């Protein structure tokens, strides 16, 4: 009996160690590909760099750094739509990374992709990213809970409790509205084709509503065969070929 338990434990330990070893090997392999991709980028071989970075994302998922480097590679190779797409994805992971945000803004500005401007209350709602609103919500909620627990143990003036609670509730409401507004635009699709057009019907021979610039964001509402009905940032509506756009947070998670 004791011998069999010992055998099982040894086998489990070996399996565990093998698992760790495989994970370490996999991480090392990813790092090697990443370095190769960076080397290719430095040498101006953006095509190879893109292939290597994509190999990493298909194997290990998405990291802000890999997506950012991928965005840089696409930008350098002149594929504005794909560059914007990958910068946008990187921003979803690391919204406060100044390099990512800076490159995205620079690319948009230099490509004539002017960012939509908000006025009045909308400006406040869109002043923070979705993650920032959500973190603000969480922090204020936790602080409010801690404050009330503290007020149970130590007497605090009723007026102070009311004012503090009201202030926190106000911030919670604002962050909820801000988060909701941001979430509505959390997953746009980016135009990745340089000859994309909005059509009035989901057919190839349909009349064109107008050209839509590569790199612009559109918000899909419904699909029909190979076309998606979208609304662009200037509230133009129309059908666009599925192949011309790609969602920032695509269902496959790739």
């Amino acid at each position, binding site marked *: 009996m004791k011998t069999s338990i010992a055998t099982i434990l040894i086998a489990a330990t070996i399996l565990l160690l093998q698992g760790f070893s495989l994970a370490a090997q996999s991480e090392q392999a990813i790092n090697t590909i990443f370095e190769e991709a*960076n080397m290719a980028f*430095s040498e101006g071989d953006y095509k190879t760099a893109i292939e290597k970075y994509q190999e*990493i994302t298909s194997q*290990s*998922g*998405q*990291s802000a*750094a*890999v997506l*950012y*480097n991928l965005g*840089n590679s696409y*930008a*350098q190779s*002149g594929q*504005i739509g794909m560059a914007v797409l990958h910068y946008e*994805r990187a921003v979803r*992971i690391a919204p406060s990374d100044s*390099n990512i945000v*800076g*490159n995205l803004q*620079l*690319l948009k500005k*230099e*490509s*004539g992709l*002017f960012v939509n401007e908000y006025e009045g209350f909308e400006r406040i709602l869109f002043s923070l990213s*979705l*993650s920032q609103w*959500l*973190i603000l919500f*969480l922090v204020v*909620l*936790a602080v*409010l*809970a*801690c404050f*009330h*627990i503290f*007020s*149970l143990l130590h007497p605090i003036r009723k007026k102070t409790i009311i004012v503090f609670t009201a202030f926190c509730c106000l911030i919670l409401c604002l962050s909820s509205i801000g*988060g909701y507004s941001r979430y509505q635009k*959390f997953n746009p699709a980016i135009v990745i084709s340089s*000859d994309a*057009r*909005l*059509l009035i019907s989901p057919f*190839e*021979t*349909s*009349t*064109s*509503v*107008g*050209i*839509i610039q590569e790199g612009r964001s559109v918000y899909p509402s419904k699909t029909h065969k190979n076309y998606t009905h979208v609304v*662009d940032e*200037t509230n*133009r509506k129309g059908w666009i070929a599925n192949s011309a756009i790609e969602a920032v*947070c695509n269902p496959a998670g790739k």
Partner: protein
Amino acid sequence: MQLRLLPIFILLALSLGSHFFPATLRADITVNASLSHTSFPEGRMSQLTITVNGASRNVDISLPQIDNISLHSRGQSSQINFINGSMSSSLIHNYLVQATQPGSYTIPPITVTISGDEYTTKQLDFDVTSSGPKNNSTKNDSEARLDEVAFLKITTTGEHYPGEIVPITIQAYFNQKYRFDEISLPTLHGDGVTSPQISGNPDKGEEVVDNRSYHVLTWNSSLSGVKVGKQSLRFTLEAALLIPQQRRRQSPFDDPFFSNFLGGYQRKPISVESDEIVFSVLPLPAENKPDNFTGAIGDFTFEVTASPLSLDVGEPITLRMTIHGKGNFDRVEAPDFPENSAWKTYTPTSEFSPATDSSSESKFFEQAIVIKDPAIREIPSLRFNYFDPKQKKYITRTSDPIPIKLNQTIAQPSTPQIKAKVVITTNPVKQERIQRSENLAPIQLETGSFHQTLEPVFKKGWYILICVVSILSLFVTLFIKKTRLHKANHPEIEQARYRKQLLKEDMQTISQAAASGNRTQFLSDCRKTTQSQLGLLWGVEPTAISYTDLCNRLPSESPLLDIFTQAEAAAYGAVVISDEQMQAYVTTLSTELENLI
């Protein structure tokens, strides 16, 4: 061999010479003192020269102390002359004589000690005159004296308008006779006028003013009025005047260089002020003032370009507006694009190109505009308004409308046409973009953590957990608080609970007494229970409650009266009650007291 010994011979000769020459010269040593001016006005200085002929070292001069007179050493110089084969040497000490008050002064004979022998100079008399009666000038004497040392000159200004940039020149004059250090930048003093940060690199030159040579530092700056009216202003500048320090003893090396090097100067901070000037700021005329006038004052030109000019509906046009000229560019703003529902406009970006040398400055604005109406055929003309201070009127520069060609035609859906357009519009953009990509931030060298999905943070487990815990804590806390508040607001509930608990315990004691058959104890417990319950109910001390109180406050038919009577009687004498009666009392007492609760 002989050549090798030559340096030794030279050294020997010099050594001998140094011993023999002073001895030979000692007999001819003379000491003289003289003043450059025997009469000079207060505020000016005279130069005292002490000449020691026949000696060039080991000279110690003992300067006298004279009231209201200060002597500043200006160093020493030595001289050796060979004339017709005979050699003579002399040592000259210079001092500046400065008086703090006018009057007649005497410099007594100055003792000069040379190699242990003392020599004296002759007495020197001099007069210090008053600097004269004060004139109508606003400057006092010390200021007048300071003007000879250093002064500031500002170019005069005329009449100007608020916000107008008025170029000025600030010149700082420093008398070449003096040494200065730590010269600061000129500082503006005055309300209602602003000046930009003055550059720290002035132009340097020299100039002669009133027969005095000055070093001149020149700064070019500007003034801008912010308040209407006559604004008085002046500039000041701080500097340190290096005054030669009065030395009583010679430096150990007996050389002017070391005398100066080893603490020769004293720093005296001075503040140099310019004359007060009046900067007149006139109000801008209200007549013909354009509505969208932003305060730009100067002389400007205005140009507008746009690209692309052949495009589709929805495609952005970049409008580039250039304002060129001289004036207050900080007030120059992008001309308003005419409000029109056919256009969507974005906030313009601006870029300022400062002047190089004397050329004009430029400000560029870039604005994205998008056509919303397919009927649009041209970009409307834009207007830029400014005020010209020379012409003293508002000027409006108007750009020409820019024709545009819309490619989008509703009835032409063919694909080949689309592709043809794409070739035209996208290729130049790509080429330009590759050139500009140098501005991108560099790639990252660490992979960082990987994520399988791009999901918002509120879908993550830790976020949900913290939210749930916080909300639950909040609800629990609020519930506890509410309960506490309810108790605080209704103390009778708690009291009733306490009375109920007390009654329960008392009734258990009474039942135990009844069960044990201890009638006296039973009745005593009944009495105590009745008193304690009624004491709590009436808010009085239980032991103070008597039969009379019960009679007064309870109904006359209350069974408690009978029980209390029996209990009182038992306390003072033997009372015999049966077991059945005891059981009946227990039930009655419990019921009656519970009813009271």
